[in-house]
């Protein structure tokens, strides 16, 4: 009896000594070095195998004091008549900018269009023209898009902080509202 008890205790001790640390740090998620977020049937996540980086051309900078501009990758996709002086500027969604700034911006884009090398207006091509060469057209479009400077926003850090603080205030107000609702429900 005693021998059996001792034998059991010995096996137990050996098992304990051999057991690796059961640290939660390494046990969460998937194998080390390969984080794999859950994938739903219609969810696309951005975590894909790294691909060779392509050199990106520097986008055009445009600053007009505290205003900001959307810098477009392919200016030919947006026809010049659209860049009219009445195109809206961006402060709280309302168009309160003086016309001179917008005219200057429109003039800037028109000047840039004249300076850039002519490109075929592939975005304006009809469906027939697109479908006939098929994959070749798409490959050309992809290559052209990869050479275009990325769309960006010319916004000062000052404005960025302003909108960030507005967002924080909104979040806190919503949190306060939720807390009030919770207290009302608990009080019933």
């Amino acid at each position, binding site marked *: 009896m005693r021998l059996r008890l001792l034998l059991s205790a010995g096996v137990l001790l050996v098992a304990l000594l051999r057991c690796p640390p*059961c640290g939660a740090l390494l046990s969460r998620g998937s194998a080390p070095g390969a984080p794999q977020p859950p994938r739903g049937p219609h969810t696309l996540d951005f975590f894909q195998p790294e691909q060779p980086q392509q050199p990106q051309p520097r986008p055009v900078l445009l600053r007009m004091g505290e205003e900001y501009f959307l810098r477009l990758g392919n200016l030919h996709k*947006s026809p010049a008549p659209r860049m009219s002086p009445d195109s809206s500027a*961006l402060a709280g*969604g309302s168009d309160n900018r003086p016309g001179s700034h917008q005219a200057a911006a429109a003039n800037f884009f028109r000047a840039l269009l004249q300076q850039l090398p002519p490109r075929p207006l592939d975005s304006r091509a009809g469906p027939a023209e697109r479908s006939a060469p098929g994959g070749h057209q798409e490959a050309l479009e992809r290559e052209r898009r990869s050479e275009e*400077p990325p*769309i960006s926003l010319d916004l000062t850090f000052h404005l960025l902080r302003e909108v960030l603080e507005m967002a924080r205030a909104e979040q806190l107000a919503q949190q306060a509202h939720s807390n009030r*609702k919770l207290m009302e429900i608990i009080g019933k």
Partner: protein
Amino acid sequence: MPPNFKLQGHFILIFLAALRGESRYLEMQEAVGYDPLLLFNANLKRDLAGEQPYRRALRCLDMLSLPGQFTFTADQPQLHCAAFFIGEPQEFITIHYDLVSIDCQGGDFLKVFDGWILKGEKFPSSQDHPLPTMERYIDFCESGLIRRSIRSSQNVAMIFFRVHEPGNGFTLTIKMDSNLFPCNVISQTPNGRFTLVVPHQHRNCSFSIIYPVAIKISDLTLGHFHGLHLKRPPADCGEIGDFVELLGGTGLDPSKMMPLADLCYPFHGPAQMKIGCDNTVVRMVSSGKHINRVTFEYRQLEPSELENENGNSIPEFCLLSL
């Protein structure tokens, strides 16, 4: 076999099975299923679950830091619009298209960018993001509703959109999902405390604070270099492969910022540095061989501190750019 020995044998077998890892599985299941509302009764849960999601109109220039449903409707041609999304450091952002009514052929567009891009500078930088720049844009006019839900790789994302026709627009639902090991983060606040952990991953992670701040690093663990003590400090952090660097600059891209300090060797006590730049980044470079961790606190610099050139500060680089 005597029954007592059988019982002991079974006990040992159960114990061994538990030690093999089943306990970790149970721990994970408990963590996933943890619901603080279990403290309350089922009626309370139903009342809270019935609450409508937060809704409001989206502005042409907007910043969102909470989940909900947001609708943009053009009342006039809106040609230069963008909306920023930012979550807590330990959150991903999921953007779901509920309804999109734009004229792609007429020049409208709606693009999601994985990260933030400002004046051509991206966060995370190209070096720290798994995708090339152009693949970080998801264009609705190209992909349509095939890619209806898009999740970011970090706690920030943004959309660019243009709508010509009044009445056209779109509705998005924003959700925040949990991220156990946040890597690239932009802080919502100029003050706070954070621990950046990179467990056995060969990647570089940045924590960005878009304010001039004083940073105090209180704990640094680089693989087997536990704590802040090392017998033989290396000549160069680059030789180590795992280190923390402090960056300062006037843009968003950490790869274009000025390195202010490298930390891979021991020092006594917390290290504080005042960085009077528009953007301050704590960046951890990890080889993947170790578990690296750095804990730091940060607070916004007062205007008087920005003018003061004494102490451990490097104002010249950033203030000249202001």
